[in-house]
């Protein structure tokens, strides 16, 4: 028997496969038993009701997608009353994802959502910080440190900081999140991108720009996962373009302790249970006793080589 469990701080997950925020909801229970997952991660919520972005909210690019869903939210109250209880029927821990406009709002919000049934809070710091000219918190170490530190004082729940691939300083941001008390990192959110309909000249998303996800994002998010796993001691959860068991293995080998599956669930709603099963089979095939035995085993001939020479 292969040991599929993985520890994310104080939480032990029964396997390292979980959904990515915004690509998962209760409706998926009509496709498979959600208890086969390592954790449940809900769509980001804001405290107040919000509308989200104009349509079209998604489009397809070469082998990947763009989305500008935004964060439509029925508000925290509605969420806590209607959604959190749904997940209480499952063993898998519920991770909620929150967003706010300022570090203080984040902290207050974290306090409020710390209700029974919530196992951890994922902090969506890819959202704009209105105190930093609308730049996302996760773009710089300073605002990241600030928001995580304030949240750390406001809640005892595990805090997972979800990083953005749009920053040029991912290692510094990761270290700032760790120093401020984050329990884990998630690498990464979508990458800012754009598409135009060349026939009409019209932008293909109602919001002009949107986030790239799916296979095209994988090499970028995998690189971030690798960089972060080497730079911090807290667990890193890989996310970006995972759709096959080989993708899962790549992330684990790069140093991720678990992975989140996003867009692949849209392409095949049974992706996650399939990956759980295939990961187990693959570990058996390799005669590895556990997921742990694979994590961080990347073989990079020359440790000293860095970004320096790549361009």
């Amino acid at each position, binding site marked *: 028997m292969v040991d599929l469990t993985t520890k994310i701080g104080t939480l032990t997950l029964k396997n390292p496969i979980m959904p990515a925020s915004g690509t998962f*909801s209760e409706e998926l229970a009509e496709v498979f038993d959600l208890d086969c997952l390592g954790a449940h991660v809900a769509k980001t919520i804001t405290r107040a009701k919000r509308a989200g972005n104009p349509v079209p909210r998604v489009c397809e690019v070469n082998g990947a997608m763009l989305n500008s869903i935004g964060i*439509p939210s029925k508000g925290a109250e509605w969420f806590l009353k209607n959604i959190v209880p749904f997940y209480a029927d499952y063993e898998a821990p519920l991770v909620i994802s929150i967003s706010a406009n300022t570090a203080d709002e984040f902290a207050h919000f974290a306090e409020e959502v710390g209700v029974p049934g919530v196992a951890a809070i994922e902090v969506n710091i890819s959202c704009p910080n209105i105190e930093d000219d609308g730049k996302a918190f996760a773009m710089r170490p300073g605002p990241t440190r600030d928001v995580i530190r304030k949240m750390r004082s406001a809640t005892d729940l595990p805090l997972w900081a979800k990083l953005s691939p749009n920053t040029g300083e991912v290692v510094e941001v990761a270290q700032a999140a760790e120093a401020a008390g984050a329990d884990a990192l998630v690498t990464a959110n979508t990458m800012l991108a754009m598409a135009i309909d060349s026939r009409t000249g019209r932008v293909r998303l109602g919001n002009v720009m949107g986030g790239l996800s799916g296979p095209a994002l994988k090499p970028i998010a995998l690189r971030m996962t690798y960089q972060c796993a080497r730079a911090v001691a807290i667990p890193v959860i890989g996310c970006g373009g995972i759709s*096959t068991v080989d993708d899962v293995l790549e992330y684990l080998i790069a140093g991720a302790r678990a992975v989140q599956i996003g867009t*692949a669930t*849209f*392409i*095949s*709603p049974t992706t996650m249970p*399939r990956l759980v099963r295939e990961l187990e089979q693959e570990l058996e095939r390799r005669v590895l006793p556990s997921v742990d035995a694979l994590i961080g085993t990347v073989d990079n001939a020359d440790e000293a080589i860095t970004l320096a020479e790549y361009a």
Partner: protein
Amino acid sequence: MPASLCVVPDSIFAGTSRQPSIHEVEARVKTHEWVNGQYRLLVLAAPASVLDCEPGQFFHLLCPQTDRFQPYLRRPMSIYSYDQMKGELAFLYKVTGTGTGAMAELKPGESLNIVGPLGQGFEIRPEWRRPLLVARGVGLATLAPLARECAQLGRPLTAICSARSPDLLMSTDLFRSCGAEVITVTDTDGTSSVENLTALIEGLIHSRGIDAFFTCGSARLLRMLQEIAARHGIGGQAALEQHMACGIGMCQACVRPFRREDGAATLRVCREGPVFDLQEVL
């Protein structure tokens, strides 16, 4: 997408009481023919698990990767027909772009990954005794199973089929075989204008006692029907489209605004729809 070719057996649910109602399955192509210069009819051999459908529901299709087309997202398609006895599921679709272009290359014997059935189908309320179907374009596909359902329920049916030109009229035989009175209108004949149709429909309301409208495929016809329906106090439903990613209700890509008692509501076409109350559509 070799990944998605591997289907999770339902046995994953063994030991739990939760039963899946949406399935991802491989379906084999039985026949695949051109219906006219734009539309193809795809008939699949599908397992019973996905054939518990309602008219108006749809499937989300994983179009194949071909040398010419590499679609990424699934494509939503209304159910054109489903038959549990024969184990058949059919789609009538217009070859439009990347996804349907790739689909058009499917050959009999090949396999197509489908997810469904999805969404809320049409509801034929008990008080709706004399329905009128008004369809154009893909709507001719979407309303076909509804015609069959009306026939089964013994509701005498009238169907107005609109198209650009007579060769693009589809499903009329199917409507007729359901006992429907079929009226065809086309742009080339000049019979498909809103003015003409409004007069026609008001006539039908009087002559046939039409008490419900069902429509799909044209925003123009939808507005027209809303207007006539409001005037005559007639109920009805419309099937809508929107760009989708998940098709199941997870991503919130497919929203549209709707008129509800408590003001405007933003609903998911894939989940709360694709069929909505006629007057709620904004």
